[in-house]
């Protein structure tokens, strides 16, 4: 089923969520019925530090319009220090992406605990809105992949 071509811009958004906090936070948003746009698709990773910058570049290459990484709050990482690594890596990556023309608004790191279903939903709503305001991402997309 290909996404039908309509005039309305439907962004493609990839959300990486750590298994222990943010994925559980997303589950809580679900069980509390706190909605957010269907454009967000979640990929489960064991820890935010598992997210290789390569994955994010790949997403943009494949036509994603925004990528968000969610992990445990600083100090609460299940693996003690994983989110600190993620934070440093992403700071570097996002500044490089900005340099390449992928605006900073298209990338985001957010700490969402397992108890913060509300925060997960509001974060996703905000992020989608932001991507809407930025429009389609054309910078890193590999045009050969477009179908």
């Amino acid at each position, binding site marked *: 089923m290909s996404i039908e071509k309509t005039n309305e811009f439907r962004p493609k958004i990839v959300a990486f969520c750590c298994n222990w906090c943010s994925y559980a936070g997303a589950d809580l948003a679900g*069980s509390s019925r706190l909605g*957010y746009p269907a454009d967000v698709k979640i*990929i489960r990773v064991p820890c935010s530090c598992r997210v290789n910058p390569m994955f994010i570049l790949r997403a943009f290459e494949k036509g994603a319009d925004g990528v968000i990484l969610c992990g445990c709050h600083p100090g609460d990482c*299940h693996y003690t220090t994983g989110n600190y690594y993620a934070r440093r890596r992403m700071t570097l990556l996002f500044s490089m992406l900005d340099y390449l023309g992928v605006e900073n608004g298209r990338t985001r790191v957010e700490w969402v605990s397992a108890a913060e279903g509300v925060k997960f939903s509001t974060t996703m709503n905000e992020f989608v809105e932001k991507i809407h305001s930025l429009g389609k991402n054309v910078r890193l997309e590999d045009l050969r992949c477009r179908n």
Partner: protein
Amino acid sequence: MQRIGVFVCHCGSNIAATVDVKKVVEMAALEPGVVHAEDYQYMCSEAGQAKIDAAIKEKNLTGIVVCSCSPRMHETTFRNAAKRAGLNPYMVEIANIREHCSWIHKNMEEATKKAVILARAAIAKVSLNTPLQQGESRVTKRALVIGGGIAGIQTALDIAEAGYEVDIVEKTPSIGGRMSQLDKTFPTLDCSACILTPKMVEASAHEKINIYTYSEVEKVSGFVGDFTVDIRKKARSVNMDKCTGCGVCQEKCPSKKTPNEFNRGLNTRSAIYTPFAQAIPNVPVIDREHCTKFKTGKCGVCAKVCQAGAIEYDQQDEIVTEKYGAIVVATGFDVIKLDQYDEYAYSQSPDVITSLELERIMNAAGPTKGHLERISDHKAPKNMVFIQCVGSRCADKRGKSYCSKICCMYTAKHAMLIRDKYPDVNVTVFYIDVRTPGKNFDEFYRRAVEEYGVNYIKGQVGKVAPQPNGQLLVQGVDLIDNKQILMEADMVVLAAAIEPNKDVRKIATMLTASIDTNNFLTEAHPKLRPVESPTAGVFLSGVCQGPKDIPETVAQAGAAAVKAIGLLAKDKLLTNPCTAKSDELLCNGCSTCANVCPYGAISYIDKEVNDHGIRETRHFAQVNSALCQGCGACTVACPSGAMDLQGFSNRQIIAEVDAICR
């Protein structure tokens, strides 16, 4: 090529109401590698699992995708189903189309599209899955309890009764904790020491319980079933085997000016001391900071008077290393500092006290031998004012956002006891709300009002002003009468908020147990797993998890013990096979991965290789899969891409990204 089966769950109407399940099946069947796709009302039911079983066997499936609820819910269920059908349990992936799709979207078309994409991602991932084998790790049949208050004692007793060795580590010179400082307990008014001391004695006499007092946990490594803990036994300066507990040293000690912690600083103690009469062990400690011998070198009275020759000035701190299968945290609480509450004049007047201080004043072994009297001039009070919620339910930085839970009840207790023993003392309680949920609690509070004539005023106190005549002028409000009240009091008692012991953050960090913004330890699930930390093998007992009274603490202590026993009863634990693995062909031995590993799971081996005819020794990273917890920090740090995480490999995650962005 994998042969993949896709199973889409309706979850009654939970999924089917917003996701066109048939459409998902239809679309999934078109994906490469998918040889079977079906839907069913409840996949997790026995009939649903039987369908999976049958499909695996009939179609010879090598991997399955279940489109259902969150993997945190039923991943284990479906893995076990796969295992029973002869498939490796790690060849199962879950597409979360309930929590992440049907429950949050309203539009059926949109939700269905998303469900299809989520299914595709899972299919893309499972086609790159490899069978994984769970390893085994041993369980050390010994538990550690951190904290020797009523929570720690109860947990230790319960674990020991089940036949396992338990060590209690207590920071202070004696076990007993906060409860040993209390005079009476609500709602039955029985004496705290009378019910606690037998438990303390039982714990110390139990052959399976070993108590380290005046000791602290220094370092924790390892993981569930196999923790290694360093315990610092602080130098007591008294030989525990020789000391007879006669107490002569304390009597003769010339430096008696140290504030007595046990009596909340209301009186002083000697430099060599046991905190209280029923202390266990009944062996004193020399407080080196305040001891003349240690400060100036001149004294040594205690050594001279000790008949047993137990005083050892040259004792050093000792580190004991011990292995444990389970760790229970029972670090308890303290009362918040009130120096920022100038309006209540706590720092200005000795007659403004906290409830815990009143507890000591009321206690026969306390600084006033149990006589209710003012600290300043030892006069018996005529008017007493109690102020509730001091620092509890605060939005500002001075206090705590939560309700401390125990204050309403202990204030009713204090008021009742005072009115009972000293009927001519007027007792006024200023309250915001009286919260008494608990068995016989509200009845108890009502008795204080109706039978004992305690004057409860709905309203708060704005200011306590010490007067030149030694009285305290209390300015409060009665919200029912809508009147401001000015009254003179002889003593003011503040129901100060309780907070977790300040050392808990340090301990939580050592255990990698998560902690909330108020420094309470987080439970694995607020409703269904209230005594377990999300960190496997760590259990929570008592107020370290949240404010609670004695009966609740004891109940939770027992629950934590049962969870620990459940763990210790196992001979082997199955380990998570989703661990990191290094590719020898790519590893260049740079040791970046070892530097980021929080578990020290990566070591290096030297191996002789034959590289195109050249024989040489190379350095390779090797992951100890028993230690690796599978966070994946190393996989990203690795500059040559040699390190990968099984079950969440680079290729698998990229396949998911591709499927989502397709």
